[in-house]
């Protein structure tokens, strides 16, 4: 541990303030609770909201997993994990099922979560209505009145213009039939994992100073039309390393002739499958053109 700093960097008063905001967020699922976000040793936009939430809830017996883009070894995940290793001494893990707290940027693990686990999401822009209405005073009023017609108008325009709802990630959801919520920039592939999850989902936006939450077993519905139902991404390929056909795949360009291959974005999921003897499907050995 580095000298001169409190457990998990923040002082206890600040942690208590954040926990009060978290309790309010859990009590009103999907509602954005303003909180007095602090400057952190990492820059805004690099996960300060998630870091503050994790710092406020982490205890000595916790086991922490940090991922970015689904992987534990991406630079920002390494950096955040190291911050907590330096300021808490808690155990860290790369295995989803062993973790009690999983801080994430842009993904929810493929391995199903269980009761007692807490997901902490790093949120860049918490306000789902922001691109439709730039003013905070106005969007807060719209939430208060559950007046979300601008969002439906946007979806209508998408279908009229593109034939699809043109949102691939940070796909808007309605929580518990009441609040419109941004799930943070996870691919819409991960949206169904939010619905009635046994785990507690906490969302922290540091620069925008908002905290919100989805309590366990809460209904989370992705917006859609009856005749243009919400659908998740699908791949014709399987993972080139473990053969998985049910996971989110990253596309890797392997040469300058547009040769590509696909691998699991969730490195722990991929690793675990390989450890259990799974390998590439025989017909996907060749990378797709």
């Amino acid at each position, binding site marked *: 541990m580095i000298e001169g*700093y*409190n457990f998990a*960097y*923040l*002082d206890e*008063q*600040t942690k208590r303030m954040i926990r009060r905001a978290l309790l309010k967020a859990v009590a009103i699922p999907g509602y954005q609770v*303003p*909180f*007095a976000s602090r*400057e*952190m*040793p990492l*820059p*805004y*936009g*690099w996960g*300060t909201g998630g870091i503050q939430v994790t710092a406020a809830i982490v205890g000595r017996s916790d086991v922490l997993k940090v991922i*970015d*883009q*689904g*992987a534990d*070894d*991406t*630079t*920002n995940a*390494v*950096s955040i994990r*190291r911050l907590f290793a330096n300021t808490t001494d808690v155990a860290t893990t790369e295995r989803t099922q062993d973790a009690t707290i999983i801080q994430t*940027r*842009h*993904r929810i693990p493929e391995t199903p979560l269980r009761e007692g686990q807490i997901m902490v999401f790093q949120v*860049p822009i918490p306000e789902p209505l922001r691109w439709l209405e730039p003013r*905070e*005073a106005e969007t807060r009023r719209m939430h208060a009145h559950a007046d979300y017609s601008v969002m439906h108008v946007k979806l209508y325009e998408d279908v009229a213009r*593109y*034939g*699809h709802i*043109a949102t*691939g*990630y*940070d796909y808007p959801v309605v929580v518990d039939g009441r609040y419109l919520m941004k799930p943070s*920039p*996870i*691919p*819409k*592939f991960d949206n169904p994992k939010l619905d009635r999850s046994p785990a507690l989902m906490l969302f922290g936006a540091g620069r925008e100073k*908002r905290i919100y939450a989805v309590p366990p077993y809460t209904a989370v519905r992705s917006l859609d039309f009856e005749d243009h139902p919400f659908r998740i*991404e699908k791949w014709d390929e399987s993972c*080139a*390393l473990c053969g998985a056909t049910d996971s*989110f795949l*990253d*596309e*890797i360009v*392997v040469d300058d002739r547009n040769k590509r*291959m696909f*691998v699991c*974005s969730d*490195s722990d999921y991929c690793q675990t499958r390989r450890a259990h003897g799974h390998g590439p499907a025989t017909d996907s050995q060749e990378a797709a053109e």
Partner: protein
Amino acid sequence: MYVAVKGGAKAIEASHALLDQARRGDPATPELALAQIASQLTLSVDRVMAEGSLYDRELAALAVKQARGDLVEAIFLLRAYRTTLPRLAESLPVDTDAMRPIRRISAAYKDLPGGQMLGPTFDYTHRLLDFALAAEGKRKTVEPVAAEPQADCPRALDILDREGLIEKVAESDASPPDLTRDPLQFPAERALRLQNLARGDEGFLLALGYSTQRGYSSTHPFAGEIRIGDVDVEIVPEELGFAVCIGEIRVTECEMINQFQGSRDLPAQFTRGYGLVFGEGERKAMAMALVDRSLRAGELGEERTSPAQDEEFVLSHADNVEASGFVQHLKLPHYVDFQSELNLIRRIRADQTREAAE
């Protein structure tokens, strides 16, 4: 077989080592001491203290050194450190009437009680690179003048006030809101706006203030008074019940005089714009005063048409620690989001191709 290009702990460590090396520069040159930075790069240190919201010359000098002279990075370092400090007490408002000035000018009056005092200023220097400075040791000395409180140095704006020609300052004993303890919420009262501006990025405020001079919500400003000097910081310890001075800080204060048409109910009078920053930061204090006045559009019944009058726009984007972080977060990987966009655009194009074929 494919090996993930995802970085790792080793790469980060190597990068940190390189950074440290780059910071140190050529080992043949002597290393900068904090005292050198604190006493010779004073205006860098002042800016870092002002926008870092922490008055500590030594820590600010350390931040400048560690940030390789990148002031926004240094401000960030200071803020992140400040986060970890307990708040022991809240000071009384500093009394700038009792300032011991090193500089005091008014552009509105040719002469006024207390006089004009230029002090150390770049104004009226010719901006000619001084090659003599490249060689060490050149120094001009002046007879030191004691910086004493000037009893007969009333504020320029008080002169107008006595004639009733300028709006009264709304005085209040209420505690001002505290941005470091409560999140910014809108609409924001003036005290909160001023706090935000005092921490705000000098370049951003400069550009906004400048825009008001170029027709984007003109406020017809006059630099009523600018003073730089030292003020006492006082606290009232609970166990004592009276104020004690715990030290002094240097601040720059700017009071702008702005025109106001008046209305049917209100006689024509001047209005105020206010700027106050830690250290010597005249450019920032002036820009702050211009923007403060512009942001009062609603209160003074002026139509809001320009960016500098738009409270949410100005206050939400003034903080350079927030802005720098979020702009630069675009460097972080976005593979997953990008993959989703790729899938979507391919699907839309495939549908279009199929429809065109039908």
